[in-house]
């Protein structure tokens, strides 16, 4: 009886081995033999796909994948693959995941990481391995000061976003008493600090919350805000915490305006707060509205993903296209790709991209917009922040 079982299992194992080998063989045949294009390479997406701030990562991954699909339509199926790495947006998960990414020699570039905290953790590993990265959304200014030659930021950083938020609070909301809080993350605390320094004496009190997804009861912070008499509240952090805060503030009877950064620029904020409470909340973003993206991007995105393009989807689309253009031009090693990106001047659907020597976006190309949540929980563009 046992012998029979062993024979069956052995036979099945051999069959599986043969099938796997055959599959492997056929795959490698198709990539080398298909065309003269530079195929068989991978660009990685590294960032949140699950977790409390997942939407922000998914928007970017989907924008990047759209670019890869359009490229493969022209150059052969599976010519370039996008390899996804889910960091859950967490700086704890990021380093280990980054180490496994750099061992894959087919990966010659990274779109991401989208969050500043995980960027601080993973970018040194990418830099040591020489893998070029373009982040469509990590805005912490200090990221470009570490001397990482592979770092490129496709948007303005918080040194542009922070003052824009502060200017909006002072000039548009005309608030003289502002409460500032953050979630102690690299992004949230950094942005809140810039806003605090720009607002100066208008800041009546401050507080800190736990990281996004780690706290649901904000009654102590809510109590502080109500007691401070502030008419505007700036929260440096991501949309889930911001939404819960907004909901609990409304329940406590606070009637001021809540302002957030690009981490709050997502319909997930209205889902957490409820449409009524979220209506009127303001978010800034170093991005133009996705609806303003040129060409057919908006409809292409909707056709592929059956949903509207989200925050930074268009920037991620452009970032991936920079990599793809680099591959077209024959830059198929990480080193050559990095040199290519350093000197690129690329007109995409969201913006034109030229990088400085530290990897920042050329300052003449910076855009910062303010958005508002309307009564149905959607984000609508409000106004572009004036260039200071």
């Amino acid at each position, binding site marked *: 009886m046992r012998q029979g079982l062993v024979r069956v299992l052995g036979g099945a194992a051999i069959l599986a081995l043969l099938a796997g080998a055959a599959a492997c063989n056929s795959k490698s045949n198709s990539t080398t033999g298909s065309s003269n294009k530079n195929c068989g390479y991978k660009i990685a997406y590294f960032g949140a796909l699950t977790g409390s701030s997942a939407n922000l990562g998914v928007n970017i991954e989907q924008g990047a994948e759209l670019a890869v699909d359009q490229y493969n339509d022209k150059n052969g199926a599976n010519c370039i693959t996008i390899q996804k790495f889910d960091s859950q947006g967490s700086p704890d998960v990021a380093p280990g995941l980054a180490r496994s990414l750099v061992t894959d020699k087919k990966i010659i570039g990274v779109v991401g990481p989208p969050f500043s905290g995980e960027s601080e953790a993973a970018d040194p590993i990418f830099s040591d391995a020489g893998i070029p990265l373009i982040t469509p959304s990590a805005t912490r200014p200090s990221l470009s000061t570490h001397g990482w030659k592979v770092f490129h930021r496709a948007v303005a950083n918080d040194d542009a976003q922070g003052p824009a938020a502060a200017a909006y609070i002072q000039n548009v909301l005309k608030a003289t008493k502002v409460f500032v809080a953050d979630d102690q993350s690299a992004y949230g605390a950094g942005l809140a600090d810039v806003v605090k320094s720009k607002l100066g004496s208008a800041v009546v009190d401050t507080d800190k919350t736990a990281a996004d997804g780690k706290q649901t009861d904000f*009654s102590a*912070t809510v109590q502080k805000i109500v007691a401070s008499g502030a008419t505007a509240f700036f929260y440096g952090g991501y949309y889930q915490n911001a939404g*819960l805060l907004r909901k609990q503030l409304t329940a406590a009877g606070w009637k001021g305006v809540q302002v957030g950064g690009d981490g709050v620029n997502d319909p997930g904020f209205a889902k957490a707060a*409820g449409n009524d409470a979220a209506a009127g909340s303001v978010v800034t973003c170093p991005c133009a509205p996705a609806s303003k993206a040129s060409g057919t991007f908006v409809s292409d995105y909707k056709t592929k993903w059956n949903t509207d393009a989200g925050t930074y989807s268009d920037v991620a689309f452009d970032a991936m296209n920079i990599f793809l253009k680099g591959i077209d031009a024959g830059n198929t090693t990480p080193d050559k790709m990095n040199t290519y990106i350093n000197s690129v001047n690329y007109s995409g659907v969201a913006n034109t991209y030229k990088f400085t020597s530290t990897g920042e976006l050329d300052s003449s190309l910076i855009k910062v917009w303010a958005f508002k949540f309307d009564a149905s929980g959607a984000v609508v563009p409000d106004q572009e922040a004036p260039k200071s």
Partner: protein
Amino acid sequence: MNFSGLFHSFGPLTITGLAQGAIIALFALGYTLVYGVLRLINFAHSEVFMVGTFAALYTWGFFGLDQNSPTPSLGAVIGYMLIGLAAAIVVSGITALLVEFVAYRPLRRRNAPPLAFLITAIGASLAISSTVGVFTHQNIKGVPPLIRPATVVHLGNWAITNLQILIIGLALVLMFALDRFINYTRLGRGIRAVAQNPDSAALMGVNKGRVISLVFLIGGLMAGIAAVMYVLKIGDTKFDSGFNLGIEAFTAAVLGGIGNLRGALLGGLLLGVVENYVAGLFGTQWHTVGAFVILIAILMFRPTGLLGESLGRARA
């Protein structure tokens, strides 16, 4: 240290702390009862609570209510509250009984060492919360605004809202009822007997298995009620919302005297208020640190907790 801020907000911090503490107290009952009878820390109790929150939300969803619905009329609100409470109580109770039946009873039958109970408890907790997380895609679920917070009483800058009165009042009434149940009914006497000495109780004719199931059921019922109060207060729930609150509830149970019902109430209320004061004094990011420092300080001087006695201590 923000003394002026604390002084200025003393009243509101106390009231919101008491409301949060009342929820923690109801939640802590499950831990304290099970420990008193079985000497087991039921880590899965936090998931019993969390499942209750979702049960109430999905029941209200069945009636077409979601977080963007308008607040219904008073009669409808009372009706929805009762239905929500019933759903949460039933689901939490059943979950508690299931956990007891599937996770702990087989171990008891085999006289497993205490470590096996501990690991099973943690495993059950993780299994249930992960499963709910998979089904809800780890998203938060908003709560219909059944109770629009409205200030009922104003004492200076102490504004006491209707929701806070409801939560604190309900917790006090339930604690009183449970206290009378444990101390003045036959079933309650059985619980106290098993807590004192399970084998002697069995010799005296108490059905040990049934008493243990009853203890789990009562803990589950209380957790279900705490769950509904929690969602009305916080406005959202998530697959892991039981976890953090569970740690606080267990801490409250230890603070008040594990195995002691009144201790759970006192511990819960005290913990809620102290956390708020620490948050007001040092900033919200310190509130957990402050609460645990107080806990350690109290345990150093009174290791059995504030009210000390356990469930099984004989009382006339």
